[in-house]
């Protein structure tokens, strides 16, 4: 018997919706095809990385002092997961778009939006399905790490998990962009073009405007590929994580706004502007969060422990004035070796370029070009060095304290490993694809009963 009273939105179970989204993403050929393509892609990258690492390790065996230069993070993890990054950039959008695009094209969306769920709930369910697809697509990369361990390779849990977190956030960001694109586009093909405009457009930004000063530098920071750089360096930056999470949330909010077809265009536009402004505020606040943890085993992003402790106690503002052009390689050295570490170690550091328009060629005759002025309290000093060995004593001198005694903690030993990745090739080109194909076949089996939720 049907009542004439309305059916209330509250109380509709989430599990059927989530199950539907998971079945939809797993039923698509795009997901399984991507998974199969990732096997040789990641496998060959892993094979090459292990081979090069093995060659370097063989050289180190002749000269053990160089062993500390061998880190699995740089030698194996980053290049192997770099192949995963390429696949996520180029292939994963098609998987994520399908989560919504298929329903738009078949007309099922007109049924879906009438179900007793809010638009935000529908998008959350789809985002969860995208996350599950992302986790499943990490199987080839995870198996590469397992093979590395079986070969006797070393993995540092903090830096490995940090790198995996970076790739997970990057994948979710691509997925959220794809959902937004599918939400605003009438067809999956258009949504794919919109999404690839973001992902491949980031590569274009990297190639064309990165390294340029001023506005171009700011634009280059919008590149999605910047998301991974910090994680690949072994840093866990709170501002970056908050920023990525806010951006994912922003794209999900935009997808929610543009999902229901019954809302007028102008209202959607106003809501979108509001969401973008809200995300911009969060991103602005996130840049003020300075917490960044160096998770690398060799602590490459930090000074020695004794220096870190001493610098943390310098409470007065340190003002660094750099007389270098941003594109000058010396500035990049100074930034990497000293300035970035100082910003993380000291509570109050501000860095400014003396003149953003300086050019290493045109300023060749300028005597001050190349100088870096350090002002701490009422005292200041000048140096042209980009080495912490010279800068840190200078800072201690400005602060009126003596240089701390070096700690007795052992140096990073390095993890050389002479191994061959040949065995991995069989796994990635044969074993794993067969397992994935079997899983695909299993997922195609039709249930014989209706599932009751």
């Amino acid at each position: 018997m049907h009542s004439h009273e309305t059916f209330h939105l509250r109380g509709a179970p989430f599990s059927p919706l989530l199950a539907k989204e998971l079945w939809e993403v797993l039923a698509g050929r795009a997901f399984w095809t991507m998974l199969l393509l990732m096997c040789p892609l990641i496998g060959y990258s892993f094979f090459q990385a292990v081979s090069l690492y093995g060659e370097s390790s063989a050289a180190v065996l002749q000269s053990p002092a160089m062993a500390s230069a061998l880190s699995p993070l740089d030698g194996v993890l980053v290049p192997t997961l770099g192949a995963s990054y390429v696949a996520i950039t180029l292939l994963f959008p098609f998987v994520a778009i399908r989560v919504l695009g298929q329903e738009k094209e078949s007309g099922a969306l007109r049924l879906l939006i009438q179900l007793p769920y809010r638009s935000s709930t529908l998008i959350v369910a789809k985002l969860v399905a995208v996350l599950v697809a992302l986790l499943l697509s990490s199987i080839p990369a995870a198996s590469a790490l397992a093979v590395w361990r079986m070969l006797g390779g070393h993995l540092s849990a903090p830096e490995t998990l940090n790198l995996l977190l970076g790739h997970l956030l990057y994948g979710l960001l691509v997925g959220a962009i794809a959902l937004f694109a599918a939400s605003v586009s009438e067809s999956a093909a258009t949504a794919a073009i919109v999404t690839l405009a973001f992902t491949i457009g980031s590569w274009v930004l990297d190639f064309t405007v990165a390294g340029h000063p001023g506005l171009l530098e700011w634009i280059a920071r919008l590149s999605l590929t910047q998301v991974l750089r910090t994680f690949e360096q072994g840093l866990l930056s709170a501002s970056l994580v908050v920023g990525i999470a806010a951006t994912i949330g922003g794209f999900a909010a935009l997808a929610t706004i543009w999902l229901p077809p019954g809302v007028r265009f102008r209202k959607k536009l106003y809501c979108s502007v509001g969401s973008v402004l809200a995300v911009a505020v969060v991103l602005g606040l996130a840049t003020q969060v300075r917490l960044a943890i160096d998770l690398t085993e060799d602590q490459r992003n930090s000074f020695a422990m004794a220096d870190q402790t001493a610098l943390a106690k310098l409470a007065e503002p340190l003002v660094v004035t750099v007389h270098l052009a941003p594109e000058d390689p010396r500035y990049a050295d100074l930034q990497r070796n000293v300035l970035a570490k100082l910003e993380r170690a000291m509570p109050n550091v501000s860095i400014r370029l003396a003149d953003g328009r300086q050019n290493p060629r045109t300023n060749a005759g300028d005597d001050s070009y190349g100088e870096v002025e350090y002002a701490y309290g009422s005292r200041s000093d000048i140096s042209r060095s980009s080495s912490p060995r010279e800068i840190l004593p200078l800072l201690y001198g400005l602060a009126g304290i003596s240089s701390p005694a070096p700690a007795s903690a052992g140096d990073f030993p390095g993890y050389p490993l002479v191994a061959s990745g040949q065995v991995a090739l069989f796994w990635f080109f044969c074993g794993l694809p067969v397992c994935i194909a079997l899983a695909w076949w299993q997922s195609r089996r039709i249930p014989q009963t209706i599932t009751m939720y």
Partner: protein
Amino acid sequence: MDGVFHLVPSQILFGAKSPVQAEPDRFSEQKPDQGLLRVDLINKQYAGEPVLADIAFEIRRGEIVGIIGPNGAGKTTLLEVLAGILPAEASDLQWLGRPLPASRRREAMFYLPDGVRPYQDQPVTRVLSFFAGVYRRSADEITGMVNAVGLTPVLHKRVHSLSKGYGRRLLLALGLLTPQPVLLMDEPFDGFDLRQVRDILQLLRNDAGKGRTLVLAIHQLMDAERVCDRFILLADGRIRGVGTLHDLRARTGNPIGNLEDMFLALT
């Protein structure tokens, strides 16, 4: 097998799992003297061209209303505006005497579009599971629905492999699983042969008999005349007549004419 409704035991459909049944939340007061749904004004334009103009009518509880008109008359647009899935310049509706904004239409109505084949890669069982799960339908209700609509032979087929008729049956089953008091259906008989149309007509009659209100957009006048209690005649985006066949005959002065005669006379 088209046209034959099959009975299937519930344990075959659901295995050993016990069904879950829940009543939907209810909140509004019922006022017996009022119509269920009153459309005060609907205006809709596409690119400045009016496709629906000055639409106003009332729907009473438990009746089957046919929106009748030729292709391009605006039937589908009217249903989509009613359901709140298409924005309109004016869309003022009253539900039991209270305004019903577009954002809350889905609480009162469910709209079955024409030509939709949802979740094509999924088997029929999974699509039914989804809708049954959303509305907490019991195993018995789903079994009854599958038998009534005649979906048994294709339960384990994927949606994309269904014939047009079975695709329509699946859509009909989904609509009948929904609990909203008003079901809007666009061309519900399209894709069915004569025998199937009779079966579906009976099914819709039974649903209306249980208190549900059905609004059907139909361009086949014979089908409409057989199933609908009242008619809304639509042409060029405007209402040309509203009422029972008797009302329309009285209005046109043709006491023995059929719906086709009425439609031609009024449009």
